[in-house]
C-alpha cells in the first residue's frame, strides 16, 4: 500500500515538473516571423492572424521571438490573436508542440 502511494506521489511529481509556462505572442504558422504591417490582411497584427487562420488554413502558434510552438488548443488562442500571453502546459520537444493547460494575457 505504501509502495503504491510512493509510486503515485513520484508520478504526480514527475507530471508537475513537466508543466512549464511559455511567454510569447499568439500568431499564425504562416507568418510567425513576418511583419504583418505590409500584408494588408487587416489593420492590426491580430486581424492579420485571424484572417490567416480563417481564410488560408493557417494554425495558431506561440512565437517567443525565436521559436514557433504549435498549440494543441486551437480555440482559445483566437481571443488572444496578436497579443503577448503566458501559456502553461507541457512541451513535446520533438514536435515543438505545447499541450496547453491554460492561457492568459501576459502582464
Amino acid at each position, binding site marked *: 500500500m505504501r509502495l503504491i502511494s510512493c509510486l503515485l506521489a513520484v508520478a504526480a511529481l514527475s507530471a508537475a515538473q513537466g508543466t512549464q509556462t511559455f511567454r510569447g505572442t499568439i500568431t499564425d*504558422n*504562416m507568418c*510567425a*516571423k513576418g*511583419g504583418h*504591417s*505590409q*500584408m*494588408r*490582411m487587416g489593420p492590426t497584427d491580430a486581424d492579420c492572424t485571424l*484572417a490567416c487562420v480563417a*481564410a*488560408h*488554413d*493557417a*494554425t495558431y*502558434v506561440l*512565437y517567443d*521571438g*525565436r*521559436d*514557433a510552438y*504549435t498549440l494543441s488548443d486551437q480555440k482559445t488562442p483566437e481571443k488572444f490573436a496578436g497579443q503577448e500571453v503566458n501559456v502553461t502546459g507541457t512541451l*513535446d520537444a*520533438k*514536435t*515543438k*508542440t505545447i499541450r496547453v493547460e491554460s492561457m492568459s494575457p501576459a502582464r
Partner: protein
Amino acid sequence: MIRVVPVVLGVLAISASAWAQTPPDTIERALAAAPRQMREGATVIKWKPDFTYETLKKGTNRLVCYDRSGDPGEQAFAVQCTSVGNLERVAQNRRFEAETDKVKKQAALDAAEANGSRVKPEFGSVFYSLDGADQASARLHTTIAVPGATAASLGLPDNPKEGGAWIMNAGTTTAHIMTPGH
C-alpha cells in the same frame, strides 16, 4: 600493432564515408512539399549557417527543395520547394530572418526594398511550403511570386476582402498571390 593501425584506419574511413552520404530520409523529407510529378527531378539542397548551401541531390528540373525544420521561427516540420532561380532570394531572406529583433529586421527589409538591394524572386514562380508539428499534420501553403505586381497591373485585389485570390505585399518585391484555403 602494425596490423591493428591499418584495420582501425580502414574502419574509420568506412564509417566516415557512410556518414558523409546523405540518408535517403533526409532527401525524402525535403521533397515532401514538392508536387508529385516534379519530385523525382527536383534538386535537394541543405542550407548552411553562412547562407550558402550544399547540393544533396542534383535534379533535372527547375524545382529545388530544402528542409527548414528547426530554423528560427519555423515549426518542427518545415520544408519548402521553389524555383532554382529563387535561391539567391531565399538566401537573402535567411540573412534577414537571422535577425531576431522584429523592429530591426523590418527596418533592414524596408531599407533593402527602398535602396533596390532586395533580390527579386522569379515572376510567376511558385513557393510550396509544408509546415506543421510533424509531417502527418503539416499543411501545404502555396504562393506565386509576382514581384512588383499591383492590383492595377495584375487585375487581382491587393487585400483578401473579396474572398478570392489576392496579392499580398502588392507593389513590393515580396508581392505574391495568395489563394484561400492554402
